[in-house]
């Protein structure tokens, strides 16, 4: 891995390691090395370097909350704001534990989209009424409650068999 203009340039081996980790981050260096046909010390060095560079931010687990009996509801909210305060509103939303993802969009109007979870519809409404609507610069809020989840995955850095959008250095 090299640095170009302060941006880490990953080679094909780095990307393969990331792909394997995304599938299962609990695999040993030896197992990853065996899978990719490289030495475990190489796997170790590359992972450590990617951690230091902040490319690997953290190792997480994915929980199936439905199997835990949780009946949370998920909603996608669109927050229309005064353009001058869009960043501030987005940052405020990031602070709320109910908010899982926050994005800004430049489509028709400046807007923020956020994924929110709540125990009930009433809790969702209270959160928006007490913590989103009163934020200075919020013009209106549209909420769509998710009724069925068809897919939920993290974006994969390498998808074998398809063209990779990353430029890899060889």
């Amino acid at each position, binding site marked *: 891995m090299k640095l170009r203009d302060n941006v880490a340039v990953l080679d094909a081996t780095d990307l393969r390691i990331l792909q394997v980790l995304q599938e299962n981050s609990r695999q040993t260096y030896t197992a990853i090395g065996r899978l990719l046909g490289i030495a475990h010390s190489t796997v170790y060095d590359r992972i450590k370097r990617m951690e230091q560079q902040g490319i690997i931010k953290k190792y997480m687990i994915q929980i199936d909350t439905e199997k835990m009996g949780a009946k949370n509801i998920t*909603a996608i*909210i669109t927050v*229309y704001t005064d353009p001058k305060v869009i960043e501030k509103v987005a940052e405020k939303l990031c602070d709320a534990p109910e908010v899982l993802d926050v994005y800004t969009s430049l489509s028709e109007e400046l807007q923020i989209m956020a994924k929110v979870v709540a125990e009930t*519809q*009433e809790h*969702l*409404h209270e959160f*928006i*009424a*007490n913590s*989103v*609507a*009163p934020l*200075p610069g*919020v*013009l*209106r*809020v*549209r*909420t769509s*409650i998710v009724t069925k989840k068809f897919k939920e995955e993290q974006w994969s850095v390498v998808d074998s068999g398809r063209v990779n959008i990353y430029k890899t250095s060889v």
Partner: protein
Amino acid sequence: MSKILKTVPREKAFYFFTSIGNYTGVSASSMREFMEKINEVNVKSLEFHLYRGDFEKWVNEVLQDAELAGDVRRLHGLNLSSDAIRGQLYSAVSRRFKRLTSMFSQAIV
């Protein structure tokens, strides 16, 4: 009495929604503003909040006006049409507002 007519901080204002999570962009920070916004906001919002008991709750807990809260609560059982909700609600709030402002101005003379 003057307390009831005060302007409350924005985090305690009333925010008008048309359904769960759908904020209209209209809010009210005082009884006067609440009265004005009743005439402006989408009638769906009035229906949504009236039958959830949100108006009476805000009037009682934030404006601390138990009398107006009672008047608003009584509208629930009347099975009003959308337009009648606006008229009846506006009438209840404006009547109370006029009474309070008149009492307040007499008290300071």
